[in-house]
């Protein structure tokens, strides 16, 4: 069941289009990653989904409600990107306040505040004024505030930008634990490796438009390079292969070419063996998320001139 549904969403600021006819669907219980270069429209999209910004056209629904609907907001948590917390409050007081805004009474709010402080690794720090927290601690506290209402869907905009590697790993573990608990996480992050490690599905957005979306495994299974070390390659077969694969390179006994699908590797090897080649090594290239991301963004830049 789709818990986040976006249909033809467009947001225009004056003469600048931040988002253009975006369509997305996120199933419940998934970790969904939103990627894109700076200024691509990611934060605008997230702000529309949490009800801070109104779309110019199109529609979005989160947990079955429009983003501004307070009934829906009871089931949504949000960690903004450039946020600050009220420094005059103690960490625990801030979480109790947010828990009460999320609909819990005083005692339940206190209990929940203690739970989430513990969850984000701030147990024992709750009595300190927020103004005295380090940047990393504030980011953890922001995450705790996003989770304090026990939401079904959590929107996290760059949740680990201020954290050290240990803190990042801890947040990844929290995200995976939330997924285990059936929560949906909408993750907006620049850290591609982080997205690669936790996300089930991703969408790549560039110049306000979704340029690719789907399961991470499917995106990575696209065009792939393969490098084969072989012997006995005849000139005739080499010419035939050059005609078929435009990117083919032959250096010594190493043949490198790009295939449209990984499944083609086996057929290619079979063809080479049938033609009398001796195969010493087959090394399929790995399509990292970074490669996919950079290729798509570059394609977009070339298309738009």
């Amino acid at each position, binding site marked *: 069941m789709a818990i986040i549904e976006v249909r033809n969403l467009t947001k225009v600021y004056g003469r600048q289009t931040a988002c253009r006819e975006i369509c997305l669907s996120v199933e419940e219980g998934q970790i969904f990653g939103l990627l894109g270069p700076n200024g691509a429209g990611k934060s605008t999209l997230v*702000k529309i989904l*949490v*009800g*801070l*910004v*109104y779309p110019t056209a199109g529609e979005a629904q989160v947990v079955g409600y429009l983003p501004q609907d*307070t*009934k829906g*907001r*009871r089931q*949504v948590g*949000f960690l*903004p990107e*450039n*946020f*600050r*917390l*009220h420094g*005059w*409050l103690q960490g625990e007081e801030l979480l109790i*306040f*947010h828990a*009460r*805004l*999320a*609909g819990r009474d005083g005692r339940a709010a206190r209990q929940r505040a203690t739970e989430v402080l513990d969850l984000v690794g701030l147990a024992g720090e709750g009595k300190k004024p927020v103004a005295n927290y380090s940047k990393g601690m504030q980011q953890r506290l*922001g995450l705790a*505030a*996003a989770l304090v*209402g026990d939401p079904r869907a959590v929107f996290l905009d760059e949740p680990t930008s201020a954290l050290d590697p240990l803190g990042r790993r801890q947040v990844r573990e929290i995200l995976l634990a939330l997924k285990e608990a059936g929560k949906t996480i909408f993750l907006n992050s620049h850290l591609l490796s982080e997205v690669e490690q936790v996300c089930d599905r991703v969408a790549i957005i560039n110049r306000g438009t979704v340029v690719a979306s789907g399961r991470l495994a499917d995106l990575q299974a696209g065009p792939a390079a393969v490098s084969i070390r072989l012997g006995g390659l005849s000139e005739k077969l080499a010419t035939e292969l050059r005609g078929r694969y435009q990117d083919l390179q032959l250096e010594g006994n190493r043949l490198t070419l790009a295939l449209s699908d990984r499944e083609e590797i086996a057929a290619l090897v079979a063809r080479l063996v049938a033609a009398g080649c001796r195969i010493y090594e087959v090394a399929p290239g790995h399509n990292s998320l970074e490669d996919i991301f950079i290729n798509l963004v570059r394609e977009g830049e070339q298309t738009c001139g």
Partner: protein
Amino acid sequence: MWLMALFSFREAWRKKVALIAGVLTLAFLILYGTGLHFITRDVVNTANPAATATSYYAMMQSILLFVMGIYLASFLVAGLAILAAVGSIAAEIDNGTLYALATRPLSRRDLLLGKFLGQAAMLVIYAALFFLALTGLVYWQTGLVIPGLVPALSLFILEPLVILAVTMLGSTRLNTVSSGVLAFALYAMAVMGGMMEQIGAMMDNTAAIYAGVVTSLLLPADAVYRRLVATVVDRLPVGNGQDIPHFLNPQSTLGPFGSQSTPSDWMLLYTIVYIVVLLAAAVYTFKHRDI
């Protein structure tokens, strides 16, 4: 909404806004009390040797000193109202603290009205204590119990609420500095207009009176002050014919601090409606804007 109101009220205390305002107010009261002591002693006893402490002349002098204190206190209260409200929406958007609040299951109307109520509660307490301190000082130094104490107190409390509403409306649309400048400019205009209106009334100059009325319609803060003065002075006994003649309008003895051109009940009603309409406009603007 009430949770938000309590939050805003606590914020004012915890950020020590009220404490700083309290210290400054105490300094003001000490200065005012000192001046009151010497002015009362010299003016009452030397400017008119025929007057006794209980004479009508002495009473009017005491009222003048009280009204001047209220006039200056209004500046401090207005300043606090503007500084408290100017950051309520604009600054919270600028520094990013509003994002987490505005995505909670709390309508923007409740968020804004909650902030208004919290700040209004702080201002009402502050203004009431300030007013009572001034009346207490006047009583201590001159022996005069301010007539119409309760309605005058209510009007003094109303002044910052008017300014709070207009500043809050500015804060929902403009940035922090712009909304602060707008509120201070409007207040300065209202005070200037009020002064012109009183001078116009003394000189029978209709144009000056109308100029004051127009500025009062733009921001009825000074009109509320003039009504406060009228409330106090109208409750004084008429001139007893000894040191002040029967025909003399007591307002004229207060000069530009008096209320020769007294705002009507309609102006009071307008002020209440003004607050409600501005708050409704603030809710509408805040509800329909991107954050």
